[in-house]
């Protein structure tokens, strides 16, 4: 076999796409074709729909897909985390049963990790999984579950042993969301949206073969999922854009994106909408106020410096250098930027900041910024947890003393809620 080069990969994928891409196919039909060709997930192993393509050459495939306008495999949402976790820890049965339908977009997934009693401390989960007869029986409650209301499958972290230490008594399951023991309720947020759900389990069942890895190894598997979440966070949060082109496959993809992205529609507001600040300052006539100018400049400065910090991290990565500290700071910096932007939006909006909805500027968009920004410092690791991570992993400062890890979990003090 000849060596893979950018040119050879480009020629191969282009030839295949030119022969096969057809926007009038059904979305699933097209994706099945794409998956069979190996170009859908070229970096995956050959055995599982891929081509073992080096990660560095994947962008070439993406460029060719974009050039011709071909739709890729389903990527948005938790399904990518499910795929990554199953690829790493799943059995052949799991891969056989789930991977293709993840990629075609037929199945959607949700992540059942956080609980009312364990937010930052995910390993403190108290949802129970008990073997009864030949099935796992699940009881407990999860929270902050994006897309649970339409998900087919859930990635479940549950406690299987209360006498082992905290991290050793957890197991990881794939749970069928469409069963009587699973009750999904929307969770209304302070900004009025309900992007997440609470999920209640009452004797919900999991087939024994849907345990991932071994009993007691749940934390290791969870770490894999979370690592992919962090790595892909930008991708998950970036607004997935459907093409406005004509063709059955495009239409079906637009519908898919609308469903998957629905919970995230306020996320741009959560980040503070720095992009609106100068426009709003002109509209409100506040641009001549020297105090306002200073505050605006502070936000623009921080936001630009944050963008350049992310670019530095990427540039180092592309050069194959170990990432410096600049790579670990993005989440914390974006909280600062969002808060500063919300302050400036308030300043610019004046009394109108008392209002919301159609009575308020930009049909409620500004009001939505003001009540959405707090989420950024909490979701996906609070600012406080980010600071712990930075100080312990980057700056090598001593870890927090803790007394919850070297004793049976049942003896660890915990929330009475749940």
């Amino acid at each position, binding site marked *: 076999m000849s060596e893979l080069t950018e040119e050879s990969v480009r020629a191969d994928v282009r030839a295949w796409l030119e022969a096969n891409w057809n926007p009038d196919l059904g979305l699933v039909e097209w994706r099945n074709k794409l998956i069979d060709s190996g170009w859908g997930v070229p970096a995956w192993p050959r055995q599982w729909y891929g081509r073992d393509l080096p990660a560095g050459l994947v962008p070439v495939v993406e460029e060719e897909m974009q050039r011709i306008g071909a739709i890729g495999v389903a990527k948005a949402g938790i399904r990518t985390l499910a795929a990554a976790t199953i690829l790493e820890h799943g059995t052949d049965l799991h891969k056989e049963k789930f991977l293709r339908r993840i990629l075609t977009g037929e199945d959607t997934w949700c992540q059942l990790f956080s609980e009312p009693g364990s937010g930052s401390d995910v390993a403190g989960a108290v949802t129970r999984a008990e073997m009864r007869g030949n099935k796992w029986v699940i009881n407990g409650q999860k929270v902050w579950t994006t897309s649970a209301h339409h998900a087919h499958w859930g990635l479940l972290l549950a406690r299987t042993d209360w006498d082992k230490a905290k991290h050793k008594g957890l197991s990881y399951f794939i749970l069928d969301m469409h069963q009587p023991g699973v009750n999904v309720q929307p969770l209304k947020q302070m900004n009025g949206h309900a992007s997440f759900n609470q999920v209640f389990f009452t004797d919900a069942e999991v087939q024994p073969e849907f345990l991932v890895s071994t009993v007691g190894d749940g934390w290791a598997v969870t770490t894999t999922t979370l690592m992919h979440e962090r790595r892909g966070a930008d991708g998950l949060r970036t607004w997935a854009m459907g093409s406005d082109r004509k063709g059955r496959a495009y239409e079906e993809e637009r519908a898919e994106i609308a469903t998957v992205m629905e919970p995230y529609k306020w996320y741009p507001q959560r980040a503070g909408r720095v992009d609106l600040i100068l426009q709003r300052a002109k509209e409100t006539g506040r641009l001549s106020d020297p105090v306002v100018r200073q505050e605006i400049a502070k936000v623009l*400065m921080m936001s630009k410096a944050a963008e350049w910090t992310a670019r530095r991290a990427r540039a180092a990565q592309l050069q194959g250098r170990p990432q410096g500290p600049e790579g670990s700071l993005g989440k914390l910096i974006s909280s600062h930027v969002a808060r500063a932007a919300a302050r400036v939006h308030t300043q610019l909006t004046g009394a109108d900041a008392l209002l919301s909805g159609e009575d308020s500027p930009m049909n409620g968009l500004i009001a939505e910024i003001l009540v959405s920004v707090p989420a950024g410092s909490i979701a996906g690791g609070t600012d406080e947890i980010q600071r712990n991570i930075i100080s312990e992993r980057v700056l090598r400062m001593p870890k*927090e003393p803790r007394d919850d890890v070297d004793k049976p979990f049942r003896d660890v003090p915990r929330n009475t809620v749940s």
Partner: protein
Amino acid sequence: MKFAFSTEQEEFRSNLRRLFAERSPPKEVRRLMETEAGFEREGWRKLNSELGLTALRIPEAYGGQGFGFGELGIVLEEMGRALVCAPFFSTAVLATGAILNAGKEAEKQALLPGIAAGDTVATLAWVEDNGRWDAEGTTLAATTSGDSFRLDGHKSFVLDGHTADLIVVLARAPKGLSLFTVRGDAAGLSRRALKTMDWTRKLARLEFTGVEAAPLGEQGGAAGPFARTMTEAAICLANEMAGVAERLREDSLAYSKLRVQFGRQIASFQSMKHKAADMLVDVELAKSAAYYAAAALDEGDNDVEAIASLAKAQASESCLQTAIHAIQIHGGIGFTWDNDTHLWFKRAKSSEVLLGDAHHHRELMMQRWAA
């Protein structure tokens, strides 16, 4: 935009870091800062000739090495880290910038080789007693008598003004804002070292009484070259400040791991860990802005003035905040003269103000981005 240091640049940086650490330990910084000059000619000449520092960004045609602001930024950052006591910013950033930006070919041929070789200590005198950083504040007058020019008035806050061999002066001439050069020992020039808050940054006040001066560049055409020089200087200072901030951050972190109170390293307290994380954020933001701005100069970015102001404002805030945290982390010992932290604290403070503080530069940025 190219936004990563090359392997050669990284090697250059580590060489500088090692040499500056050897030649400019805190003890040496203290010895030199207590002298009126603030540096020693022989020591500086030796260090400069080994490393080619003042030649770095001067084109080869004028005896220099022809590197860009990326490399100059590295030198400044490392000098800030080691607090190297030398007339480098005055000579290699301010005076060299003014000559390159304003000078006619013959003037560059005459002035730059001496700077590149390290024989000439030079500076730029533009600020006056009114403390304005822009050209609007200039009142010093240049008059013509025949073919020659004479300068009357004063300049202040002149970096290394009392020791410079060559002084580039911004003045109001019959044709408008113009640049001139005078020798440090010119007749009619009286120079007084000012007492500075930051002993590692020496400033002087200069009185001009009928001082004979040579024109630099077009008469009446100094506004553009001067503004360009200020843009370059803001970016260079931002890079120096990144080094100052990083040194403060690293030293405080190391101290917090050594210092024991209540039976624990103070680094084990969450209040200290979170402060350290915030300091890292501050310093990395300042570095990103400074590096980006240096690249913007090298690549001829149209928006470089706004980017320069952004970098200076970010550096002013980050560097001072880091210095404040650094003193706090050191506690009582950090407030003593014997502890070295105050040397960098004062450099952070003087750099915050020099060339305009964060408020000043944020306003300049807004004038570009939201006219």
